[in-house]
């Protein structure tokens, strides 16, 4: 079988089953690697390093061949990134016009879900057009099934890692998330099933201080390793480059596939950019509840600079955790291991304080 062509994406709200159903491999353009800063020139220095790195990778020729890109209008920075992406690809005759930006409402009321459903249909039309082949609803349903299987397996495997039954700790788990985000569904399924069947490791368990991690993007496995090397045991995390990417899509044979996806994506564990107007500031509760559920003694928040959705909500989180007596360490970085590494002493001191 011919290898599948890749479709680039950059946000955990991307309708991955659509990409699979169109016959493509979803390829998350992770903000990794070290490249000369060209994006800051084109956009502005004050845009988040997440999207600047994505563009820098594209501008430095660091990406595999992409047959198109599906972006999500999740925040100002993403929208501007999509503009720049279109601009830098305008001379590429094959890719020119093969970028779609899907609108993503900030709230998950029924009108919004229905509008988002229409946006997913628009995305499906674009993908079908690029591929030259209609996407049948049955194919989408089958891809949703595969996606759900991946989602379930990832939960089980994450648990195995966290219980120390698989080698490599959370760094190895992050590698698996990254692979899942950059590979065809079928390859991911094979890999995950192997891991599920792998015998329990006899490596010593992480005896570190249990912490919960949250934030926007932190794809570098070594960052997790570094945090653990400071004496932490990462009990669970909530990043857009981690567990948030493969939240399950409800099994509902009655609903049409687009509605199912729209509802599942908009109502999944939200990052800061999506919220419930009836419960302003709920993100703080979510962080606290997740930390408690993970039996963490403390919380480490890691956000990249210039991320408005988080910058304006971190004070909520800080206050809620303070009121609940849950220690919090906030780190700000630029997606590079270097920037997290610079904060090693702070992390060590925090873990020490938790002991």
């Amino acid at each position, binding site marked *: 079988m011919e290898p599948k062509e890749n479709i680039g994406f950059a946000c955990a709200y991307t309708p991955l089953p659509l990409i699979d159903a169109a016959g493509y491999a979803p390829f998350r353009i992770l903000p990794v690697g070290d490249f000369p800063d060209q994006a800051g020139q084109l956009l502005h220095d004050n845009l988040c390093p997440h999207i600047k790195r994505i563009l820098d990778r594209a501008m430095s020729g660091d990406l595999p061949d992409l047959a198109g890109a599906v972006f999500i209008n999740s925040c*100002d920075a993403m929208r*501007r990134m999509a503009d*720049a992406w279109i*601009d830098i690809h305008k001379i590429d005759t094959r890719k020119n016009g093969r970028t779609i930006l899907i*609108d993503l409402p900030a709230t998950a009321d029924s009108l919004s879900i229905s*509008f988002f459903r229409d946006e997913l249909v628009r995305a499906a039309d674009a993908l079908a057009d690029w591929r030259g082949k209609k996407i049948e609803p049955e194919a989408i349903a089958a891809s949703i099934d595969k996606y759900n299987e991946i989602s379930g397996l990832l939960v089980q495997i994450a648990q195995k890692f966290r219980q120390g039954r698989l080698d490599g700790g959370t760094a190895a788990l992050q590698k698996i998330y990254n692979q899942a985000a950059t590979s065809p569904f079928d390859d991911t399924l094979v890999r995950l099933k192997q891991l599920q069947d792998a015998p329990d490791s006899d490596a010593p368990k992480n005896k570190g201080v249990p912490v919960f991690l949250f934030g926007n993007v932190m794809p570098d496995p070594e960052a997790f390793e570094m945090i653990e090397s400071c004496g932490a045991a990462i009990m669970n995390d909530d990043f857009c480059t981690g567990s948030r990417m493969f939240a399950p899509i409800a099994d509902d044979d009655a609903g049409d596939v687009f509605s199912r996806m729209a509802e599942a994506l908009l109502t999944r564990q939200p990052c*800061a950019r999506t919220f419930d107007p009836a419960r302003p*500031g709920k993100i703080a509760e979510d962080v606290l509840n997740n930390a408690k559920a993970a039996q963490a003694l403390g919380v480490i928040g890691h956000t990249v600079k210039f991320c408005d959705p988080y*910058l304006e909500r971190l*004070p909520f989180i800080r206050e809620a955790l303070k009121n609940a007596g849950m220690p919090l360490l906030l780190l700000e970085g630029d997606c590079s291991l270097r920037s997290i590494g610079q904060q090693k002493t702070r992390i060590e001191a925090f873990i020490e304080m938790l002991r």
Partner: protein
Amino acid sequence: MMKHYFNDLVAGIEASLAAAPDNKSPRKLYALEIAKLGSRLYSGENRVAWCGIAAPFDILSAMNVTSCFVEFIGAMLASTGLSTEFLEEAEHAGFASDICGYHRAILGATRKGLMPEPDFLIGTTCPCSGGIAVMENMAAHFNKDLFVLNIPQQQSAAGIRYLADQIRQMVTFVSDHTGQPLDEEKLRAAVIRTNQARKLIAETYELAKQTPSPTDGKMLANFGIVMALLLGSDAAVEVAQAYLDEFKNRVKNGISGSKEEKLRLMWIQNRIQFKNPLVDMLEKEFGAVVVIDELNDITWDEIDPDDPYTGIARRAISIPFNGQATHRIDHLKKLAKDYKIDGAINPCNWGCRQGTGSKGLITEGLKEMGVPVLNLEVDCIDHRSFADGQIKTRMEAFIEMLNDRPSPWG
């Protein structure tokens, strides 16, 4: 503090207008109506809604709600030199200095009790991610209900329908909170007034395109965005009429807005809101006049009073800051051409991702038509980091460069 400030402002402008009844300066009338709005917001006697920039103020005013986008207060605090205390308060509370200055000032003002308690809030996802986050913050702070209008990016049938339906739901939300249903006739009358103001403003802008322009660098500063707050009211029609009359008179009598118009400039996005010498300097020292601000344009069609929600939804979607950069750049190019612009100034408000994120593409787009852009690095609200001398030097060099090249318009 703000209550007294706005009340004093109203009294002062009224006294000055009464002292010279024949000289109805449109800018004064405009300032008066804005001061009156401020006064109503802080009077404690009106129903108040804090809103996002793209809220439908004409509908809210037809429903007897005094409403305002919060960034307006951020700008007021900066223009009166009072913002520092509130910026510091926000930063002290953990809001990073990388957040847009408008929002930092408001977050600080909210925490310091300077923002009157609203009855409810109407957030809008356009123009920026920061704006909607501020609404969420304020709703939590005041423990008041928040309604969110998701502004779609495109003028598609689905997008317009989606927003129009949300506006209908907003009307129900508002009447649930005020206890008064919408009076359809009142809304109709408000829409008719919106259309009247729209027409007058469009004619005014048409005249501003003349060479030399009847406007100067200040008369229409912040005009387009702030006038949205008055839409639906008689005040909007009066202010617009005063501008039109003044511009007609100036054009008829060959009076230009500035003494000497050698170069015509376009101001991109928002003005620097705190007192600063730049626009005056450009005009007085170099004859370089800001004849158009990006937001001083009518980008929407007349609204059908029989189907107001569709037209109002279209209007919100049409804002140049909404959607992809190409939408904004096409609009800037149109303005540059219509106003025969020699050069453009983009302040690149620090903290404004949606705006500054298009810096490179705007520069490239306007360059294609021979219009250079001077990109500055300022925080339009926070004067603490304002490098006055450095910016002046860059402006001088920019003007020199413009003077040394032929006009792109022959």
